[in-house]
């Protein structure tokens, strides 16, 4: 029997919000077996199977021609926006339903890492393609993921890679590849960026088929000197060169630590252990395992603020609120709430990814959380509410902590909860907005 507080901490970080039953199961199974189920699940994911990717239909742009009228273009734009909403809603449903939660959370991490926004890409098809690429390669060799992402039409379009040609290279993708995706700032020079951009020249996107391909006539096949090495670098050899830099493993360790463990700097010894686990196969799963089992991990409780998607999906999981069963109106409110909280899936605010930590904690976000929490509480069923309506106020507070997988309430929050203990829905709403539930 593992320590319940410790497995709860692990599950809060490795899932979009564990239910109390899941914590009970993990405590009984032990840490090692829980980790194995999270990191390398062997069973089929019935939740994912029940929420297949949406059929978007054809991209309305592919039917447009130069001769299309203004009305036809407007209609196509409108259909595209609807497809984007459909995809975003589906993703939230998938996060809720999936059993392989760490896979979903890792895909979400990659979404914030290769942070591509549909605001510029404007195509649900390309965004879905990128999600599938990140899902397929989420947990294996990072080199495979990186090479697939460098061929990903949405990423290429987001960073103007299709405009990057032999005659005049465009640096946007090469710069962010080194700065934000693989090495981190300070590990390369401006000359490396210019040469790197040349290695990435020639990729084009067919907007009708949504495929990227290399056009040899636009590609600069000549010699380039990058990071002190001279060769006829192309996309793959350039990626290999970057990933062979010592700075790369350190960079990725820090990014994973930042999102899965703590907003405080990673301890040096921990960093070394993560790097050692990652090499030589650039094994993302091995690095995650090292992170979750590191001696520094248990001390990171309370070091993260739940991202808005994590907060909302976690609440729905714990309350058993299947978003597909919500009225369409309520589902729209949910996505509107995520917008108010600053985290609409598929729309990161910057190529640098989502905000973190105290950035999520503002007076305006509290107001949105209050509205969403009241909405969730209004939808809660008897199975959730009954334990919150039974026994003494003390017992109700304990039941609420169990439901929401909060280790303990502070005295301050006990006061707030006790005032609402006569009304279970109100009690639930206060719990969902409480500072204890806001952090992870």
């Amino acid at each position, binding site marked *: 029997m593992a320590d319940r507080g410790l497995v709860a901490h692990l599950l809060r970080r490795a899932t979009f919000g564990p239910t109390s039953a899941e914590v009970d199961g993990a405590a009984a199974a032990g840490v090692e077996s829980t980790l194995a189920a999270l990191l390398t699940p062997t069973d089929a994911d019935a939740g994912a199977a029940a929420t297949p990717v949406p059929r978007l239909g054809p991209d309305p742009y592919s039917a447009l021609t130069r001769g299309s009228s203004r009305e036809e273009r407007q209609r196509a734009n409108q259909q595209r926006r609807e497809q984007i909403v459909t995809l975003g809603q589906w993703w939230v449903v998938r996060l809720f339903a999936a059993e392989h939660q760490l896979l979903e959370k890792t895909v979400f991490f990659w979404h914030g890492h290769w942070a591509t926004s549909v605001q510029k890409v404007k195509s649900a098809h390309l965004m879905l393609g990128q999600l599938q690429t990140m899902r397929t390669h989420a947990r294996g060799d990072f080199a495979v993921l990186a090479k697939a992402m460098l061929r990903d039409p949405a990423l290429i379009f987001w960073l103007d890679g299709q405009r990057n040609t032999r005659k005049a290279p465009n640096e946007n993708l090469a710069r962010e590849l080194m700065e934000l995706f693989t090495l981190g*700032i300070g590990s390369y020079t*401006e000359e490396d960026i210019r040469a790197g951009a040349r290695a990435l020249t020639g990729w084009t996107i067919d907007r009708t088929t949504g495929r990227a391909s290399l056009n040899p006539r636009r590609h600069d096949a000549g010699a380039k000197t990058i990071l002190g090495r001279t060769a006829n670098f192309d996309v793959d050899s350039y990626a290999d060169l970057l990933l062979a830099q010592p700075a790369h493993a350190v960079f990725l360790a820090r990014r994973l630590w930042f999102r899965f463990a703590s907003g*405080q700097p990673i301890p040096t010894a921990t960093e070394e252990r993560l790097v050692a686990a990652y090499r030589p196969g650039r094994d993302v799963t091995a690095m995650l395992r090292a992170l979750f089992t590191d001696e520094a991990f248990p001390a990171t409780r309370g070091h993260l603020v739940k991202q808005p998607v994590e907060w909302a999906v976690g609440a729905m999981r714990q309350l058993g609120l299947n978003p597909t069963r919500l009225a369409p109106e309520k589902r729209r409110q949910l996505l509107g709430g995520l917008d108010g909280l600053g985290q609409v899936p598929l729309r990161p605010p910057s190529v640098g990814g989502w905000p973190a930590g105290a950035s999520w904690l503002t007076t305006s976000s509290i107001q949105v959380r209050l509205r969403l929490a009241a909405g969730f509480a209004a939808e809660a069923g008897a199975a959730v509410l009954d334990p919150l309506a039974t026994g003494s106020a003390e017992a109700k507070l304990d039941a609420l902590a169990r439901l929401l997988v909060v280790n303990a309430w502070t005295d301050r929050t006990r006061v707030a909860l006790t005032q609402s203990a006569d009304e279970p829905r109100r009690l639930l709403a206060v719990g969902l907005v409480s500072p204890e539930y806001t952090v992870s």
Partner: protein
Amino acid sequence: MDTVTRRKFLIASGVVAGGALTAGATAYTLWDILATAADPRREPGARTLVVVTLYGGNDGLATVIPYADPAYHDARPGLSYSAEQVLRIDESTGLNPSLKGLRQLYANDRLAIVRGVGYPQPDRSHFRSMDIWHTGSPERPGNTGWLGRWLDTAGGDPRLAVSFEPVLPPLLAGETSAGAAVAVSGFKVPRGVPQKALEALGKPSPGEPSLQARASACFAELGKVDEMITDVKEAAAADDADSDDDTPAATATGGGRTPLAAQLELVAQCVEAGVSTRVFSVSLGGFDFHADEKVAQERLLAVLDSAVSAFVNRMGLSERGQKVVVLVYSEFGRRVRANASDGTDHGTASNVLVAGPHVAGGRLIGEQPSLTDLDRGDLKSTIDFRDIYASLLSDALGADPGRILGGWTGRMSDLLGKP
């Protein structure tokens, strides 16, 4: 984690994007700021500085245009503007056709344009270069912003330095104090959670993790709901809708979600009310046009133009507004030569705008850097941005620039006129 540590970490992580830093326990409501109106401690002649940060690297050569230079047209076929298209300032310089309001400000001596502004060994990363401008220390962007350090020397009251963004921009974070991030939307507490519970959740609890304490502090701020004065117009909500046409967008690199005009509307109301705030920070993002720049850049400059010119003109109408100085800058300009995508890559030196009812306007300050004598394809700066900071610190804020800018001695004299 305390403000300083978090800031350090954010810099190390390379993901600052201007605004990853929030005010620790120093978030204020608009009401708190307006409550300082007519503070007798405010000196009668004291200026107010409004800093407009343009995120993404605004293309200086598409803003203040050396239209008569053949090298300009050679470097930017497809992106350049002819002598007939620019809003001419003199026989070699003109403004982007979108900047009609700024052109009028220039004609009215309310706008000075400083050219060739940069810093040694320019960094072309958005995030690092913006850190450098925020901190005012190119050699080693530390963990405090230049106006945060001013705030430290000015007594540390957060209400002296205000941002109307949900998160505090790093330039307002000091060593011992930080400016106030002020929520712009009105407070509407939904039914379902009683006011008393909210107040209870806002009480600090000894020993709790710092982020949990911060979450609690947000409730304490909500407690002031009922006191909110009603004659302050709410800022327009962020207009985040996708454009309906096929105009390409830039890769996002940060910047305010609240429209610039709405942020400046709040600044105007605060200034007119006579608040004690001496520094306001506002921002506009979306300038990172690596492709299809021309039309989109014009559109974004038009947003800047209408917001800033309306603000400056409005400030000219009141005694308090006369003392306002506006600084407009971006983290870098862009490469002289256009890329093949009809866009431009990250560059170096660019223009800084200084505007206000009483600045030494109607002037071009500094030379346009050569378009042919380049540093690896980029303009060579001739003026260090710290000269401008130093003059604003001394002439607008009455502070000792050397103390705030690490002993920097450069100045740009006579930037401001007499109010």
